[in-house]
């Protein structure tokens, strides 16, 4: 909260605190006042509702959409065997992100899927995600269109699956060829590597660093190497 225009505690302006954030005090005071007014209003509404024996509901904003059905199933089993790192003290009770099922919209964590699903269906969650507790009805035409859609999907699937014998044989042949090519490639790689290793070993045998040379000892080897062979004896093991 240092203000560079004002002086420091000892009269001299503190020049080394420029990096600190300068807060707009008036703006934050206004915001605080607004929040407090809103809270007071809400608590008053709650109190009045309680006196009248009703339950208090946060008023709708008018931008809510109607609820829609879920397309997917909740996949709990995909989390089995996985480890999550959770910062210590991240969640206070249900509030905040902790270990378990976390709801982004409401910033709540639930310990099991049953509670979590119950929360997903609750009016609180729907309000937080901007949905109403109501669903639009479908007309007979829409139902018919949906039936058509699924029927098309099923036909598509069947068409994909139904492949003739010729096509299946062709597919199998291609697959075999691909496998053979892969095997060949691997074999060649292994051979190449072995050959490279062997050559490296040969080089070590014939090339000696200057520091290990003893005068006159390797002259013969060098000469033979320059002539193209490395030693006497059988040539079986040589490449």
């Amino acid at each position, binding site marked *: 909260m240092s203000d560079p225009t004002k002086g420091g505690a000892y009269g001299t302006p503190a020049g080394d605190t420029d990096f600190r954030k300068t807060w707009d005090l008036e703006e934050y005071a206004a915001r605080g006042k607004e929040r407090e007014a809103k809270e007071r209003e809400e608590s008053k509404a709650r109190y009045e509702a309680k006196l009248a024996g009703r339950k208090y509901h946060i008023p709708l904003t008018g931008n809510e959409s*109607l*609820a*829609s*059905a*879920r*397309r997917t*199933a*909740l996949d709990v089993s995909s989390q089995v065997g996985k480890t999550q790192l959770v910062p210590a003290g991240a969640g206070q009770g249900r509030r905040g992100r902790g270990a378990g099922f976390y709801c982004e919209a409401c910033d709540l964590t639930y310990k099991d*899927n*049953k509670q979590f*699903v*119950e929360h*997903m*269906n609750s009016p609180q969650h*729907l309000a937080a995600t901007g949905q109403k*507790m*109501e*669903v*639009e*009805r*479908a*007309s*007979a035409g*829409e*139902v*018919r*269109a*949906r*039936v058509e859609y*699924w*029927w098309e999907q*099923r036909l598509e699937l069947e068409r994909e699956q139904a492949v003739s014998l010729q096509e299946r044989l062709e597919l199998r042949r291609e697959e075999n060829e691909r496998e053979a090519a892969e095997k060949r490639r691997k074999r060649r790689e292994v051979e190449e590597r072995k050959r490279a290793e062997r050559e490296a070993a040969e080089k070590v045998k014939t090339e000696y660093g200057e520091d290990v040379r003893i005068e006159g000892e390797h002259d013969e080897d060098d000469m033979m190497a320059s002539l193209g062979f490395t030693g006497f004896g059988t040539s079986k093991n040589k490449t």
Partner: protein
Amino acid sequence: MKSGRTVYANESRFLDERGTASELAPNGENPAKIMEKAVIGRIVDSQFYQYQCFALNEAGIVDRVVNDVHFIGGTYGAAQKPTPFLCLAFKLLQLAPADDVLEVYLGHGGERFKYLRALACFYIRMTRRPADVYRLLEPYLADRRKLRRKTRQGTSLTYMDEFVDDLLTKTRVCATSFRELPRRTDLVDLGELEERESPLGDIDELLEEEDERDQAEEEARQANGDDERSEGEIDGGRDGDGGEDRMDVDRRSRSRSRSPGRRERGETPDRSKS
């Protein structure tokens, strides 16, 4: 039918007993009381209902049936888990879809997705007036598609026509008790329904044909005339069968004079012919 453009996303208002806002079903029952309380409790607690059936509308029902309903039944397993079929039936009770929507479920959707038709049939049996139940469900006694049924004991095979027949004749199907339907003949007498025409044809003609065939066989056998002792037993057996047949025929014709519709209905789920 509930009027209005929207419907509440969960069941809390539907099950609220302090003067429910939902209207009565066409057959005069409170839709919140049609299923048994214990079963409703299980449905409302089930994971499928809570997550997948939240905020469904009539079109969403189709999504769920296509993707999640693979068998019919009430509650299954030792834990008496409610089936997705039953959960969606409960959701339909809340939604109270209009007649034209039900028509799509039964006809257009039912042709393509058999469980959609089964669900709609079940819902119609729960909520519609008896004459409508007969009128709407009887055409599907000719639907011979297979259905999987899960019970507490395990999974079994059934057929659409069997299921519809159960709905028309039994009072407890899929963990739900129905009010008993009045007899079809009574409704015909009251003039609420037309007399039913069996897809097998007219019962009198069928019986006559059977009689003629029996007589022809008899004559052929007598014409042969060279029955040996060894064949006597078989013959006797056949005679017994014939006798039984005839008794059966008698019984049928007698019962027909009393209640033709019921008898015919009982006969229709006959798959041995196809």
